[in-house]
């Protein structure tokens, strides 16, 4: 076994020594502008200054690029489990992150920016925020800086759009986030204003796994190259991100050469007076992406349910007919699974198990996560079903000379299954909805598509209604099915009663 492990590691190490033909890079497109996001006019294309930097680096290295969608707070764990080679998404270089992964030289330097409502005049800097609510992004550097300040009530968000809309809605008093975010999401908004001087200094670096030295050096070198030949500056200027900190870092104080075309395009797209016609056209352009997401949701749910049904059945039999240790094992499984959140289970399977050498693709991990989780609930359904078959049915089968196994298979289980069908169908509908959680392990299903579209278009309401409608449509056939079975069962029960 030891030898095998050694060979295995050796094999992995030798794989990593070479530069892959295609670099897999990860970001969270839900982070939105200006980092990496879906092109509103062409949802299959990625735009953003980080996407452009990756393109420039790949160009320098002569390699291809493959994008991997990953939730922002899972970007570094995903690197460690080899789901992709590099992560770039406004990840600030901090000592504790450096303990886990290597960072290239910074590709961008920026600061934090405080934003308030236009009609708010008493907040100018962080010290004015005492005893007030300040929004920021979960796990960001800004978050940690806020924590260092005394007496600030911190609200954390998954997306900057949500943070700023809560500010506008009066749920918070200020938002403290990286300057580029403020420039893109707060500055164009007539209800918000940027206040106070830039605070602190953050360096964004490209994160690469420590063991991946060769790739790290190559990427760092490529980054150095595009810093020196003006490509990096050009990209940053087009996105309106060039700032004095970058100028001094790259020792390039010359006047601006490139107009901020991308920024203007972004502003234009978001300042349009919205007509119904445009909205409709926009929504109809969502359809392909939403259908893909719905298909993935359905696929994950159905395969997950098949797994849940099979495993749940086994667990029910173990619990009812197994020997004592087997019964305990089944009970333990059911209690542990039902007593812990699905979210934690998904994280554990996707990010935790690779440490034990068990690595799954996001799809497989999602199916396993949902399947294992729902198996616990299905097991209880079947157990209840089996227990509700009169004991005398078992005796009748035994008296006819069947073995216990035959009696179960031909007499008890078919009846139990019929009883368990309505709750099973209901569980499937819950599973369909719970499948939205697999977006945390980089699966792009319906809910993830919702997040992407809503953050890109700044439209949580309309897109939300659309997505809710799709979930309803997906669940509808199964709701019907459940009702049909329930009615059928009731009729049979009633007839039985009349006879008895």
């Amino acid at each position, binding site marked *: 076994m030891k030898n095998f492990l050694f060979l295995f590691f050796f094999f992995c190490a030798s794989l990593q020594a070479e530069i892959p033909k295609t670099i897999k890079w990860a970001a969270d497109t839900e982070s939105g502008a200006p980092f990496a996001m879906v092109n509103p006019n062409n949802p299959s294309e990625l735009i953003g200054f980080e996407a452009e930097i990756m393109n420039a680096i790949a160009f320098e290295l002569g390699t291809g690029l493959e994008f991997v969608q990953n939730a922002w707070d899972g970007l570094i764990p995903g690197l460690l489990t080899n789901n992709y080679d590099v992560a770039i998404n406004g990840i600030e270089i901090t000592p504790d992150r450096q303990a886990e992964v290597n960072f290239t030289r910074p590709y961008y330097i920026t600061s934090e920016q405080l934003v308030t409502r236009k009609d708010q005049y008493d907040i100018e800097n962080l010290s004015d925020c005492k005893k007030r609510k300040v929004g920021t992004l979960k796990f960001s550097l800004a978050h940690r800086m806020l924590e260092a300040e005394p007496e600030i009530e911190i609200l954390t968000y998954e997306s900057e759009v949500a943070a700023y809309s809560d500010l506008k809605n009066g749920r918070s008093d200020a938002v403290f986030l990286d300057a580029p975010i403020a420039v893109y999401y707060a500055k164009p908004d007539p209800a918000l204003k940027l206040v106070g001087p830039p605070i602190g200094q953050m360096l964004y670096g490209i994160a690469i796994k420590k063991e991946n030295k060769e790739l790290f050096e190559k990427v760092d070198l490529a980054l150095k190259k595009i810093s020196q030949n003006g490509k990096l500056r050009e990209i940053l200027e087009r996105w309106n991100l060039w700032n004095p900190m970058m100028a001094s870092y790259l020792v390039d104080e010359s006047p601006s050469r490139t107009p901020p075309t991308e920024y203007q395009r972004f502003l234009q797209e978001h300042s349009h007076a919205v007509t119904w016609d445009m909205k409709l056209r926009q929504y109809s352009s969502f359809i392909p992406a939403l259908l893909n997401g719905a298909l993935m949701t359905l696929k994950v749910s159905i395969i997950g349910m098949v797994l849940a049904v099979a495993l749940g059945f086994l667990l029910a039999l173990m619990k009812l007919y197994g020997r004592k240790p087997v019964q305990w094992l089944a009970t333990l499984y059911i209690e542990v699974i039902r007593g812990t959140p699905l979210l934690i289970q998904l994280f554990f399977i996707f990010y935790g198990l690779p440490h034990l050498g068990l690595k799954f693709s996001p799809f497989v991990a999602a199916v396993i996560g949902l399947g294992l989780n729902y198996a616990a609930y299905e097991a209880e359904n079947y157990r209840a079903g089996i227990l509700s078959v009169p004991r005398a049915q078992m005796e009748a089968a035994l*008296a006819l000379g069947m*073995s216990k196994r035959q009696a179960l298979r031909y007499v008890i289980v078919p009846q139990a299954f019929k009883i368990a069908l309505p709750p099973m169908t209901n569980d499937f509908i819950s599973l369909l909805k719970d499948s939205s959680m697999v977006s945390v392990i980089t699966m792009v299903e319906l809910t993830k598509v919702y997040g992407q579209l809503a953050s890109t278009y700044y439209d949580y309401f309309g897109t939300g209604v659309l997505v809710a409608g799709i979930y309803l449509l997906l669940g509808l056939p199964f709701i019907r099915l459940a009702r049909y079975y329930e009615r059928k069962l009731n009729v049979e029960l009633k007839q039985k009663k009349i006879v008895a």
Partner: protein
Amino acid sequence: MAEVIVRVEDVYKSFAHQKILDGISFDFEVGGFYSIIGKSGCGKSTLLRCLNGLETLDEGKIVVDGVILEKHGDHREEQKQLLKKCHEVRSHVGMVFQSFQLFPHMTLLENVKKPQMIVRGVSDEEATARAEEFLTKVGLKMHMDKHPYQLSGGQQQRGAIARALAIRPKVMLYDEPTSALDPQLIDEVHAVMKDLDNEGMTQIVVTHEMRFAKEAADTVIFMEHGKIVEAAAPHEIFSNPKEELTKQFLRKFL
């Protein structure tokens, strides 16, 4: 003297420290029609269930057509042995329950033919033919495609008898077969049992139907407190009981 097919030897059985069978011995002969009567809780149903291994024995033994059922330890091997023997006994013994226990998810025909296929490995055609034969015998052929819930209680019980007969038992056990039936449906079940008696089937019936016990049985067994008090031909038991307990019991019933 006819051949003994079921021999009960000094059988004891308790549930939760309560003696249910308290030293029972009896020989059942081939072709006999036995009625076991007695108050509720006298142990008559338990005795019947012991005969095909649905209950285990605390002491004593039961020999069914040469197969011996007796007390077995908890050890895995012993349990396995016991299961094997029970299985063997059940292939000679058919049982009919008070509440019929037809399988509700199967049609009547399937109820009769599936067990043959599952237990005996009989082919579908053969099992179907045999099932139809026995359903005809109990007068239910025209109902064979119905599900149990579509049948009356009497029909269900006759179906259950056909199902038990189809595995070709040498002995038929009935546990209060007509207690769950309306009076007008009781006779049709009794008629089937009388037919079987005429064909020479060995039958043991636990019943509360004194009239039926009187007119149909060869031997009536009266039990009380887990013991056989008296066993004799019906005319003797009913007109000239020897034991005081029997007299008391019959006074209440007749």
